[in-house]
């Protein structure tokens, strides 16, 4: 099963947030491609990456490692990697890394949006 990768830069009020939609299988054969496509996206001043996993059917430790290095890069900038819409079998595998710092898990987009809006407000208040 191949992996389809869609990377979108969000617009205001969530500028600085990148959404990555993954469809298919994130495994030993496809993980290097995700890493390659994420590199330029992470080159900019991005602090938040949202991985939308609604259509991700399979993941192995090779895929978790890409998530983990992304999370580490963002954490060093005071940001984080968010994961939304995980299917049950993906959630089970994800358990292994869900407690790492710089990881946030949301059940759905509504929950994520509320979080991003709150975060945006707190940024503005601190200005």
């Amino acid at each position, binding site marked *: 099963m191949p992996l389809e990768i869609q990377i979108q830069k969000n617009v205001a009020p969530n500028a600085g947030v990148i959404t990555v939609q993954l469809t298919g299988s994130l495994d*030993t054969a496809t993980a290097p491609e995700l890493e390659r496509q994420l590199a330029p996206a992470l080159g900019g001043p991005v602090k938040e990456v949202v991985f939308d996993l609604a259509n991700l059917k399979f993941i*192995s430790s090779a895929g*978790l490692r890409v998530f983990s290095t992304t999370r*580490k890069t963002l954490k060093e900038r005071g940001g984080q990697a968010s994961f939304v819409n995980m299917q049950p079998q993906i959630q089970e*595998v994800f358990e292994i890394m869900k407690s*790492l710092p710089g990881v946030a898990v949301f059940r759905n987009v509504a929950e994520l949006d509320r979080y991003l809006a709150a975060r945006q407000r707190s940024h503005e208040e601190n200005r």
Partner: protein
Amino acid sequence: MLTLELQATPEEVMRAVDALEDFCQAEQLPKSVTFGLTLALEECGSNVINHALQRDANQTFRVTVERTAGEIVIELRDRGPEFDPTKAVEKDASDEDSPGGWGIQLVRRYTDEARYQREAGQNILRLSKRLGGTMTGN
């Protein structure tokens, strides 16, 4: 029974994973069992090509899958230097700089047994998963 001769590349590991998925579907195994077995094979196949065979595409390894009355057994064989993945240390998950050991943790979670043997110059790894009943909890 399913037998595959594979080259030491990630694409070939995934070819084996796809073939195992078809095999499990033909055997009408529950989706959760199929998912766990394909994940275990992905992890162990990746270990073979990355560690035992050092990504040398000229090297080959063999995967066989067999269903008996009570279990599914997946066997991986290669002629690389001795490498026992079951001895890989499970690192502390909070060691965020070195996320190693995740593969073997997943293999243990989704199979009932992972047994390694070195025999006649071959690495032989047998993964088994009991079927039916609620004993395994999965």
